[in-house]
């Protein structure tokens, strides 16, 4: 797992300290996975499509925010007040870019295929993913580009467990967004329309729900969450690469399936669980870096075989 290569663990820590340090890393990673997983689960819940390009939507947020920060000429931490402004600016740009991209792809690639056989939109999504990746590769090249570390490395140390301010910020931003999503889906008209469409699109249409607008909105929200995750990822891992979306997307998809795809609480739970599993794998499995991906996939296969409905999902019988 290349993405974790930069997360350093202090060498001289007690076994208990190491364990808790890994938990801390796992929660931070899990917050980002959960944000991306939400995009998968929202889209799957509403049109039963695995949005294969979702990981690359996330990647485009990392690429564009890198370009922005390079254009602004920022290479080091700009001081507390400016940092907050910068963080909000980056989040806004990342979310806007990803939401727009996700909306555009839905509008032009998936919408004409609403009535096509099931696999057609999935193949279109794979094509979209390929296109997004290669454009990013043509633009930024094939190698990693470092994202400047704009966050000062301050933090608190409990025993041998270090909690960076950045990690706290990441988790807070993620949790605020998740809470916002939950309120949105629960309380607003559009949220109600989304729930209705997920349950039964035809009945929802008969009740006056504008299905196309609801689906577009779902893609916009999912994209925005992935965009926010992209910014947080840039701050945490600080390596921009055209292929990160593919890997992280698969991990986040696994998280969504683990939680029970279609269920937003499940996606959040799955994200944190996968983050923890990955952090612990890297620490405790010999040669952990190399095997982290394999472990995630093994988990995916095991869930799908033994409990396809996931931790929080319901078993849905096959419709004829």
């Amino acid at each position: 797992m290349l993405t974790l290569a930069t997360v350093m663990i202090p060498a001289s820590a007690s076994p208990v300290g190491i364990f808790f340090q890994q938990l801390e890393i796992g929660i931070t990673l899990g917050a980002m996975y959960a944000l991306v997983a939400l995009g998968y689960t929202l889209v799957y819940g509403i049109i039963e499509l695995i949005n294969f390009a979702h990981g690359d939507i996330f990647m485009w947020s990392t690429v564009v925010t890198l370009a922005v920060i390079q254009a602004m000429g920022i290479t080091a931490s700009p001081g507390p007040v400016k940092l907050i402004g910068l963080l909000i600016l980056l989040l806004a740009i990342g979310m806007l870019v990803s939401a727009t991209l996700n909306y555009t792809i839905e509008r032009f690639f998936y919408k004409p295929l609403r009535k096509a056989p099931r696999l057609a939109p999935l193949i279109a999504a794979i094509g979209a993913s390929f296109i997004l990746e290669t454009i990013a590769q043509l633009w930024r090249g094939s190698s990693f580009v470092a994202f400047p570390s704009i966050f000062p490395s301050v933090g608190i140390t409990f025993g041998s467990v270090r909690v960076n301010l950045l990690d706290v910020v990441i988790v807070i931003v993620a949790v605020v967004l998740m809470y916002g999503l939950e309120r949105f889906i629960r309380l607003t008209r559009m949220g109600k329309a989304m729930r209705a469409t997920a349950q039964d699109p035809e009945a929802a249409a008969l009740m006056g729900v504008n299905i196309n607008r609801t689906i577009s909105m779902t893609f916009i929200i999912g994209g925005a969450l992935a965009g926010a995750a992209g910014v947080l990822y840039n701050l945490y891992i600080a390596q921009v690469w055209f292929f990160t979306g593919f890997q992280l997307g698969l991990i986040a998809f696994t998280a969504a399936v683990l939680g029970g795809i279609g269920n937003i609480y499940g996606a959040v739970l799955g994200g944190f669980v996968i983050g923890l599993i990955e952090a612990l794998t890297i620490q405790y499995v010999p040669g952990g870096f190399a095997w982290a991906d394999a472990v995630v996939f093994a988990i995916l296969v095991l869930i799908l075989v033994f409990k396809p409905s996931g931790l929080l999902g319901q078993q849905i019988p096959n419709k004829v």
Partner: protein
Amino acid sequence: MATQTPSKAASSWTAGIRRGTDGIRRWLNETMLAGRPLIWYVTGWRFAVIALVVAILLPLVPTSAYSDIQSLLVAMISVFVYIMLALGLNIVVGYAGLLDLGYVAFFVIGSYTMAAGTYGSINDFAGKLHDLPTLPFILLIPIGAFIAGIFGILLGAPTLRLRGDYLAIVTLGFGEIVPVVFANIPIFFGQTGISATQPAPITTPVGIISFTDPFNHAPFYYLALAVAVLVTLGCYALRSSSIGRAWVAIREDETAAEASGVNLTRTKLLAFALGAFVGGIGGVINTAAFPSITPLGFSFAISITVLIMVVLGGIGSIPGVIIGALVLRLFDVFLLQRINDPVHQSFLVAPVNAPLHVLANVDFNTLKLLIYGIVLVAMILLRPQGLIPDARRRRELKGVGAAPEGVSAVGAFEQEEAGMSAATTADVLDPSEYTGAGSDAQGREG
């Protein structure tokens, strides 16, 4: 999914493009193809015989050692390998309708069988070298195929109960894991990779045939051609067998097929195993021809490339898939280098402000992937049946569209029985008709 109003003009931009290309297609048919659609020329036995004769004669073109013909032969060996891969994936995707996104895994397994079977030694987990008996190449083809087939069953057995899109992701994971496993276990030298020993020369009455002569690629060319032809014939046989019909039944409606007595798990598993089997053959042949392999050279891009070959040619269509593989692979290994190098070299000396100088920095291999992605999306949106659609599917869809109510199913079936040759004279294809009928017939299944 319900769209409340039939505002098709506003919602489907693809329809406009289809109307536009329809005109071009008709014009082509009338002016250059003597009023017949292209498909009339490239399906059926006439075309197959001509293609085979051309393929057999190609190495006999008099040539010098470094000419383009020799590099075309090398490219063609790779083309034949990809034809095998595309045909193998076509069994899974086209016949049985299961989306396999990790097909590269079976290619890897075939490749490593060939390499390990001829290299002569392997590591153990402690990194100590052990001698291993080497096997003749001709034996390794079935061995590689069987090992890949067994892995196909091992992967398929627990996962084939899953719905189509989940299966796609699980196979994708498998395709990612297999190279990672080879890279991280020391047995086959990990990331360094391994080199196969190429097949030994054969002594025949007409002289010694060497498979390693760098100035004469014809022997390997013929070998790969022969295997590709065998695989093609096998695919035709499979398609018209009872198992082939069972696959089609599953593809069209799983629930109905099960109700009619098709054993879903066994039938799907067989498709998976046979697809993997063919992928294994492809791996063995490829490694015999291009002996150095590294695990990380086998990527998701290969799985996708093969999938694009299938989608481009026509899902389920044997001639389509062959032409899809031929076009894409020739473009990749033969044409692209001939574009890439001259362009880069010409801009190397050109002044920076010359027009189009930006091309000097473009990596055409990356650009290729972009084109592949666009091709994949465009095909699915605009012509989902592929360039050369499967004859059986066309007839099925025609039957559904044209037959009076009540007799369509029987009618379509009888047409099917009437023989394959009738299909080759099928008239102009109308894509809009296809998609219309297709979406009505297949609808949205849960």
